[in-house]
């Protein structure tokens, strides 16, 4: 006989789980008791939100499901932001929560929160386990749902009497989900139609997103681009899906995309949208998005096809599987003048910044240079720091840029970096942070020090909630309402936690500071005091067409 907690551990092992991120409490005592003897690494974060983001970072770095664990009530509600973040960015995750005993459910019992109700719209699916005998089946289903189709977080709520109950462990057998049968292959007729449209195109552009990375299709994407000689623009989630040093790469499109990426989309006659969802930050004014193009949309999620933009050819299927099929059919006939035009735009409107003073873009470029040639993973917080990273760090491999895109969660980057470093112990990990965002999960310094994770945090410290300040400058007449920050001494804070820390105020100090950080085997916090009112440019004003850019 095993307890529910022991069965849970057994099932997690069967799913190949080697690490979980969590925080204990009364309702998960039987689970923690089982973990005490288990062959699973448990990382104790200092906040459940940190555990959720760490599991998310682990998943984004590896492609394997991240697992987090929290107690009932406040423990469970502290996971909410992490679940919503993972849900928006299609990250495979399994969240385990304790719950009050079944006899106390629905009675506003101590530390009871209806987490299955709360998390319904921000999970792919969720479960409340009422009988310990259902545990093996539910756990198996949860991992299957989280990792197949369009990935996403799944939550399992386990009442304390269920995790304490004893029973025989029984293998649940094959999965039988009548309502969940993700399809892989695209419809052949649609693929043929796409190939035909591609053959006719004179000015093709590939618009690639996170689906390319999720489905492991970076190789196919590259082959596609090279076969068609088509330029590639990527979304925030698509960064790393196509090498930034490739001549066909045009960088990110959309609100803070490069001019040449947005111009190319605005003038192309064929837009091949792959693993993307036409988010409003990408399309700008949707009526004038890619106005001259035949649009082909490939995505695993049928519901994304035609949701925000009506498309000409919609192919539901796994991006990689569809691209493999599509590549068998391709001929192309691009107009040489198209490439010339793009080269002209690239020369005429380069992504650039002013060089004097402490420019955040320069810090990012230096991080890229210092880490060049070594495997590096970059997480970001949210705001200007995130956009500068997206614009100026040359990502060349999938899963190397890890950032909260859909939800835009400040406080994501640092705990995510913990998950990334745990997953990739031999790689360099940087969290490129803002002085506002870092304070949203700064307590995780304790976790990084505790587990000797040599994460580097580079705060681009402008003393502002910079991105909000930028909008106030541009659209609210410079009325900086509640965006100026009086910050603590970040160096002292980091040192108090037991990390190394440096303040960097001069351009000449940037490089040595970074070299010191990279060489250190401890967590290092670098506080870069940057130009206070630097803006992220270019920028598409909200509601404008993407070829109408400021800056």
């Amino acid at each position, binding site marked *: 006989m095993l307890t529910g907690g022991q069965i849970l551990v057994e099932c997690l092992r069967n799913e190949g789980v080697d690490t979980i991120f969590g925080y204990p409490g009364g309702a998960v005592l039987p689970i923690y008791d089982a973990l005490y003897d288990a062959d699973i690494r448990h990382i104790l974060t200092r906040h459940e939100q940190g555990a959720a983001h760490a599991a998310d970072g682990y998943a984004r770095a590896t492609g394997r499901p991240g697992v987090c664990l929290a107690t009932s009530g406040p423990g469970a509600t502290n996971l909410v932001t992490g679940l919503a973040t993972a849900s928006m960015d299609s990250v495979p995750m399994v969240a385990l929560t304790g719950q009050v005993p079944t006899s106390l459910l629905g009675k506003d019992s101590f530390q009871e929160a209806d987490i299955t109700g709360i998390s*319904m719209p921000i999970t792919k699916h969720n479960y409340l386990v009422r009988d310990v005998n259902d545990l093996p089946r539910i756990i198996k289903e949860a991992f299957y749902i989280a990792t197949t189709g369009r990935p996403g977080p799944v939550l399992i709520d386990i009442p304390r009497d269920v995790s304490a109950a004893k029973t025989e462990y029984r293998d649940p057998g094959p999965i039988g989900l*009548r*309502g*969940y049968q993700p399809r892989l292959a695209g419809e052949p007729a649609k693929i043929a139609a796409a190939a035909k449209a591609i053959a006719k195109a004179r000015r093709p552009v590939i618009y690639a997103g996170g689906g390319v990375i999720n489905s492991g299709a970076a190789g196919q994407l590259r082959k596609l681009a090279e076969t068609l000689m088509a330029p590639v623009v990527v979304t925030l989630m698509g960064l790393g899906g196509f090498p930034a040093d490739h001549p066909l790469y045009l960088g990110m499109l959309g609100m803070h995309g490069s001019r040449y990426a947005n111009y190319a989309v605005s003038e192309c006659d064929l837009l091949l949208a792959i693993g993307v969802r036409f988010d409003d930050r990408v399309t700008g004014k949707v009526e004038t998005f890619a106005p001259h193009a035949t649009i082909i949309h490939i995505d695993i999620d*049928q*519901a994304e096809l*035609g949701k925000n933009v009506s498309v000409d050819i919609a192919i539901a299927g796994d991006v990689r599987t569809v691209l493999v099929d599509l590549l068998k059919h391709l001929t192309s006939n691009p107009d040489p003048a198209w490439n010339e035009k793009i080269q002209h735009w690239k020369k005429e409107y380069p992504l650039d910044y002013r060089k004097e003073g402490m420019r955040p873009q320069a810090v990012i470029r230096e991080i890229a240079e210092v880490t060049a040639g070594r495997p590096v993973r970059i997480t970001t917080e949210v705001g200007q720091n995130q956009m500068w990273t997206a614009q100026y760090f040359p990502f060349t491999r999938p899963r190397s840029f890890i950032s909260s895109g859909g939800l835009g969660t400040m406080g994501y980057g640092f705990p995510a970096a913990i998950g990334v470093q745990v997953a990739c112990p031999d790689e360099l990990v940087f969290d490129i942070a803002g002085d506002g965002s870092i304070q949203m999960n700064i307590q995780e310094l304790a976790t990084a020090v505790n587990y000797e994770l040599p994460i580097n945090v580079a705060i681009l410290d402008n003393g502002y909630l910079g991105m909000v300040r930028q909008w106030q400058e541009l659209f609210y007449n410079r009325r900086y309402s509640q965006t100026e920050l009086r910050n603590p001494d970040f160096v002292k804070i980091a040192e108090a936690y037991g990390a190394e820390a440096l303040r960097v105020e001069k351009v000449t100090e940037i490089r040595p500071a970074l070299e010191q950080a990279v060489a250190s085997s401890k967590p290092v916090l670098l506080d870069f005091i940057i130009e206070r009112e630097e803006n992220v440019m270019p920028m598409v004003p909200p509601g404008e067409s993407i070829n109408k850019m400021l800056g």
Partner: protein
Amino acid sequence: MRSTFSVLVENNPGVLARVAGLFSRRGYNIDSLSVSRTDDPTISRMTIVVEGDETILDQVAKQLRKLVDVIRVRDITNDPYVDRELVLIKVNADSAKRGEIMQIVEIFRGRIVDVGEHTCIVEVTGDEGKINAIESALKPFGIVELVRTGRVALQRGTQTVLVEE
């Protein structure tokens, strides 16, 4: 446009909340939703009537299909189908007015299923038009309470919405 969806779902706790939550958070307008278990106790059938343009109706079907507990979704609006709704109307009915009410109920092939001192309850089954008509016919007498089931529908003949397709 108004569409009728026939939806098969797992008879799990929470499935109604999942469907209702989906409609409310995505801002879809439900005209009516009726749900009950089928001949297979593990499966419920929902008949959902939705108002929206073509894009919205397309999204409704696709978003419903994404729910793990939803097994089948079909927009049967353009198929031949039978639809029914049942209404119970408690209407003021003093002895002087009863004869008149009974005549109206007769015309609609309804029934009087309860008679109280000052009221009676009328039951009518039919499509929406018929239900609306009896409601307006009884209004002048004074409707005390009214309850409608919402539409239930099945396709005619060989067309079906079943687990096995």
